[in-house]
């Protein structure tokens, strides 16, 4: 509730002509917005472009935000739609490679500690598994696990029904686990996670 108040405070400032107040909104949401865009499109440059365009759209249509949902939900809906439109327009496909293309040794070479190497390896593997999912499923996984959004919020953002979100979440989870189990290097450190 406090977040909503604070968001509303900045929105009112922006609408009264103090456009510099928008930087507070950017600072608050930029990581989540970028992360969601990145998980959907799978590419850093495209994710930055999508995130920037989404914020511009938000700025342009701030006056139409009536507060029926939280500002964050409204913002993520814009990011989700912008990202899905982008990947469809640019025909960004789902990853077709059968095997995980990176060797764990590469991470040992580039990292200072074993733990850092573990983390980077797992991160890349998880990213790889996400890229094997449908764009919509990646978005749902990201919103649910990375941003802790509830099923109801995800329904509002994606426009999907509650049961559809649950089914997609279940299938996506299963697929991620299968991909990771198939590709992971069986070392004690990874199993500890």
């Amino acid at each position, binding site marked *: 509730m406090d977040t909503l108040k604070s968001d509303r405070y900045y929105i009112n400032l922006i609408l009264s002509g103090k456009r510099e107040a928008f930087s507070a909104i*950017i600072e608050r949401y930029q990581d989540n917005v970028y992360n969601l865009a990145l998980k959907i499109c799978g590419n850093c440059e495209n994710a930055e472009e999508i995130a920037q365009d989404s914020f*511009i759209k938000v700025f*342009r249509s701030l006056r139409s935000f009536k507060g029926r949902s939280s500002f964050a939900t409204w913002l993520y809906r814009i990011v989700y739609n912008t990202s899905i439109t982008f990947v469809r327009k640019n025909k960004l496909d789902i990853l077709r490679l059968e095997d995980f293309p990176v060797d764990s040794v590469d991470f040992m070479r580039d990292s200072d500690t074993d733990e850092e190497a573990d*983390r980077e390896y797992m991160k890349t593997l998880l990213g790889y598994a996400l890229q094997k999912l449908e764009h919509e499923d990646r978005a749902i996984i990201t919103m649910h696990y990375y941003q802790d959004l509830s099923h109801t919020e995800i329904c509002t953002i994606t426009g999907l029904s509650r049961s559809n979100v649950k089914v997609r979440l279940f299938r996506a989870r299963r697929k991620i*686990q299968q991909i990771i189990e198939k590709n992971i290097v069986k070392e004690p450190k990874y199993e500890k996670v």
Partner: protein
Amino acid sequence: MKKSEKDIIKEWIEYTGAESAPVGFSEKLMSRIELEKDYTYINPISRTFILIAILAFTGLVILALTLPRASEYTWMKSVIENISGFLTRIPDSIQIPGISIIARYLFYISAGIIVFTLIDRFLAKFLIPGKRYTG
């Protein structure tokens, strides 16, 4: 106890963490925001469509005003006889009356589009403030 898929994925995600926005993201975005200019009009109909509608309307008016007069000229009569002689074989009911009915409806439709456009612009001017990117 065996961990569920849900817990395993959650742990992986917590362990690996989320990506952060690139350095300078906020500054770059704010410089784009600075280029946004206030404006008070969103045009929901494309300018091309409005131009075509106005041209079609003007064309129909000119046709309606000039054709009867032009047909009074002898050269126009010979043109009609020589070029569109086939019209004389069409039954009277769909010859001139048919064309005039179609022309009348086209006229009404064009006038409707013009009135709609004017009302739309008028409303948009006062009711839909917004921003425009000029960079």
